[in-house]
């Protein structure tokens, strides 16, 4: 019974969202607000169950506030974050923000160097003369990188390099666009399939 009710609710919600194709309307707006409310609560519960409860609540129960991991500190920092909602004492929230941003900055340097910059550079260090693909790969990386170099005017040789770079970038944008369209179309097929098979049993 719960499954049947669920399918009818899901079908109504699907059709209500699709009603936006006709134009903005109250049914779509209502369902849009429902989506925001439900997803906010769901992700809050998810965060509680998989982050706060196992790390903070269980941690405090096992080791205490000042035991392993000094959980009193993130709790105080977290509570200071709530001062963001009180304009008069809002400046207290700068401490947890400064903590998060400082940590993020430290992690960005080591993480980006190790996880992004060095592997990408390493993969690009190829002999461009061994194959056409290698040549295009090296040429594409260098020219698209130089396209974003704005300290020198894009004229003369630099203009030509930037022009080749933008050609590579356009191919990449086109490919990304094609991929995104296909991903959205497969979602659409999924929803139409749900309406025709699970709800109407026509398939």
């Amino acid at each position: 019974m719960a499954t049947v009710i669920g399918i009818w609710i899901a079908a109504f919600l699907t059709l209500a969202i699709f009603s936006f194709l006709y134009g903005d309307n109250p049914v779509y707006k209502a369902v849009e607000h429902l989506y925001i409310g439900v997803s906010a609560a769901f992700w809050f519960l998810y965060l509680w169950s998989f982050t706060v409860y196992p790390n903070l609540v269980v941690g405090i129960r096992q080791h205490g506030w000042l035991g392993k991991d000094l959980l009193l500190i993130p709790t105080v920092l977290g509570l200071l974050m709530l001062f963001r909602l009180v304009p008069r004492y809002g400046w207290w929230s700068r401490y947890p923000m400064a903590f998060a941003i400082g940590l993020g900055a430290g992690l960005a340097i080591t993480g980006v160097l190790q996880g992004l910059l060095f592997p990408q550079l390493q993969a690009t260090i190829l002999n461009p003369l061994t194959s056409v693909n290698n040549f295009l790969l090296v040429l594409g990386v260098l020219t698209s990188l130089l396209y974003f170099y704005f300290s020198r005017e894009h004229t003369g040789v630099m203009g030509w390099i930037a022009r080749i770079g933008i050609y590579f970038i356009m191919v990449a944008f086109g490919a990304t666009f094609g991929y995104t369209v296909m991903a959205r179309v497969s979602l659409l097929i999924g929803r139409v399939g749900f309406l025709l098979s699970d709800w109407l049993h026509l398939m």
Partner: protein
Amino acid sequence: MKRTGPFVLSVVIGLWILVAFFVKPLRGAQQTLLLWYTIVGAFALVVGLINLIQSHLRNLQRGQNVPYSLILLFGFFGTLAVGIYAFFQGNAFDPYSPLMWVYGYVLAPLQSTMFSLLAFFLASAAFRAFRIRNMEALLLLLAAVIVMLGRIPWTEHTFAGITEWIMAIPNLAAQRGIQIGVALGAIGMALRILFGLERPYLR
């Protein structure tokens, strides 16, 4: 207290993470800081949720968009109540729990239908954007069309090879160039934060 404290905290934490990357005995403290980061991040979500609820309660008080705000609050507190009930019953994220029923028949259909709508808007955007005015637009169009044809069952066998080549060579080259640029930019921004030239947490 209001400005110097957060600045010092941000610099000390950032440098600690940076130094811990090279000094092995400090790695344990680095793990603790990362744990704190996730806990503080969870409190930041709570700030966002309280803000959302406050904003819609204010709408109710002022009589603006009352039905929509009521629906949002109903969705939020309804899902929260179901989640808390499921939490005390056992595992709230068990596939057969009431919370996962809400996920399966309310949240998932809303989410996937909302994203599938983009297929229509992408099609209309493509109609406007894909006018071949110059070489860049031609390359964008060709790459997008070929990649899409390479993902359709009818034309997959003809276009699969060239799609793979576009993804593996020109697309990869440009994406790599962009990623290297992003990595350099992220490192630059992180250094600015660590040196105190950028203080976004003071806003």
